[in-house]
């Protein structure tokens, strides 16, 4: 099986913002053979690990969606954001490509609906359900990918 990398990111102290991390943790439980990384935010140091992977899933909380959704991402430079300790999935893929001349054959951002960002270590009920839905979404993508190989 080709290498799959799951990256969940967010702030575990800001309620639903932890949705990405919770999804990566759930993925690690259900699919222990897959490398799952939990992060506060994406950083350039991840470029090497991404370059070594065939498929990458970025799990993140999303305030603009009402159900978990998947978006295929391609390398690009996001010019309107700081380029230091925070970096977008698109920029990170670009960095992997430029530094290591390799990048995953597929990279997905899975957006998890999130609405409550007050100081809390608990997800809202709707986001809890969406986390499970997001992991099922990733698993179905993996299944269809494996069936094609």
């Amino acid at each position, binding site marked *: 099986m080709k290498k799959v990398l799951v990256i969940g990111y967010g702030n575990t*102290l800001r309620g639903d913002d932890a949705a990405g991390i919770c999804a990566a943790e759930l993925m690690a439980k259900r699919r222990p053979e897959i490398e799952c990384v*939990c*992060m*506060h*935010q994406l*950083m*350039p*140091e991840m*470029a*090497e690990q991404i370059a070594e992977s065939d498929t990458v899933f970025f799990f993140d909380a999303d305030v603009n969606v009402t159900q978990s959704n998947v978006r295929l991402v391609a390398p690009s*430079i996001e*010019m309107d*954001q*700081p*380029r*230091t*300790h*925070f970096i977008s999935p698109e*920029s990170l893929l*670009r*960095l992997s490509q*430029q*530094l290591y001349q390799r990048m995953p054959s597929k990279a997905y951002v899975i957006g998890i609906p999130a609405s409550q960002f007050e100081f809390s270590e608990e997800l809202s009920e709707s986001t809890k359900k969406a986390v499970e839905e997001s992991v099922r979404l990733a698993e179905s993508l993996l299944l269809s990918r494996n069936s094609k190989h």
Partner: protein
Amino acid sequence: MSKMITISPVTRIEGHAKITIQLDDNHDVVDARFHVNEFRGFEKFTEGRLLWEMPGITSRICGICPASHLVTSAKAGDDILAVEIPATAEKLRRLLTLAQWLQSHALSFFHLSSPDFLLGFDSNPATRNVFGLVAADKEFTKRGIRLRKFGQEIIEILGGRRIHTPWTVPGGVREPLEPAKKDQMLNWIPEARETVGLALNALKKIHKKYAKEIPEFGNFRTLFVGLVSKNGGLEYYDGFLRIKDGNDNTIADAIEPKKYFEHFGEAVEPWSYLKFPYYKPFDYPKGMYRVGPLARVNICDYIETPLAEAERKIFKSLSGNVNVVNNSFYYHYARCIEMLFAVEKIEMLLKDPAILGETIRAQASINRMEGVGCTEAPRGVLFHHYHVNKDGVIQKANLLIATAQNNLAMNRTVRQIASHFIDGKKGKITEGILNRVEAGIRCYDPCLSCSTHAFGHMPLHVELLSAGGEVLDEVRR
């Protein structure tokens, strides 16, 4: 009529800030201010929390140097418990602190400042970033990213995760180090040492390339404050405070860190949320002082590791006849020397058999109602000062953060650069000048999220104002 220039937001720093540059009737720069417009309030909302929660809470102040807050908070806890922590725990905390220095300094030098140095202050701002660096020198960029990764990996190994690890606690640390993990860290040392060597070589070329501009980047005499070991060596975890002036006179020495409040005051200005600490005996604002790499390498008598000590002597030769390097541009040089020291010292600590000890935590209840923790964070000396009740509930907290301590000097640096580079008669700020003003701030590698105790991203806003307050020009990024 005088005018004012505003730069907002300031970029490639940690936090959100703006700069205003005031011109007089002759269009000459008369004042420049670095405004910090974030507010967080950690000191207030930690009141009522338990002492044992403080390392975990205060480490959330910052995503760049959480380990420094973690260790300093735990040290304030040690003081309140009145315990001496086990030797292994101290070595492990030292290892964590050095890993923090390494990853933070690598971020500052390679990611934040190198685009100016390697691509040029006047290069296209659209490519003056990490992607521009990759295009210019892929290997250099890759090395910088990996050096930071090394620091992050040590933090992750020790604490279980890269950011906001809850591993350090009052009385010691939670988990001992596994032997296999020690070897994993040691395997990084040759590459890390070589990468710092590359950084130093690159920086020395930069010193030559910008020889005419460097004298205008925060070149003035101030006090320097930091920790030194009991023998006067470069220190990062313990020791005593030393204060030197810009002529190498020792103003005060062997100050117990817990007595810092007797020596340092905090002034406030209505135009910034960032306080203005000063050395009390010299009053405000004459008591301006600098902390961080430049201060530490200036005030110490020696560095205990050979390669860093050899580099310190070369650094000192830049000072002319005063034996103190007063130019803030050389913060970068001092930062690279400290990276070298960190790599060497990490290797020494990992090769010490005691690092694998299993006695790692002293247990005690509340024995003092007040405690102070002090360490050298990447950006300078950091204090956590707590008052508790008999149950260990925080009654009052004061956090004196490195970036705040450089506030007066950052303002003076901005004024010096603005005075030298801005032609007020044109009433415009060119992109290159804007970037030089920002670069002056970046010498200090400020972390405004830490120092204002920020929510959101941290972009720069520069305004050029007339004497009557009219905005003549404005740049935002």
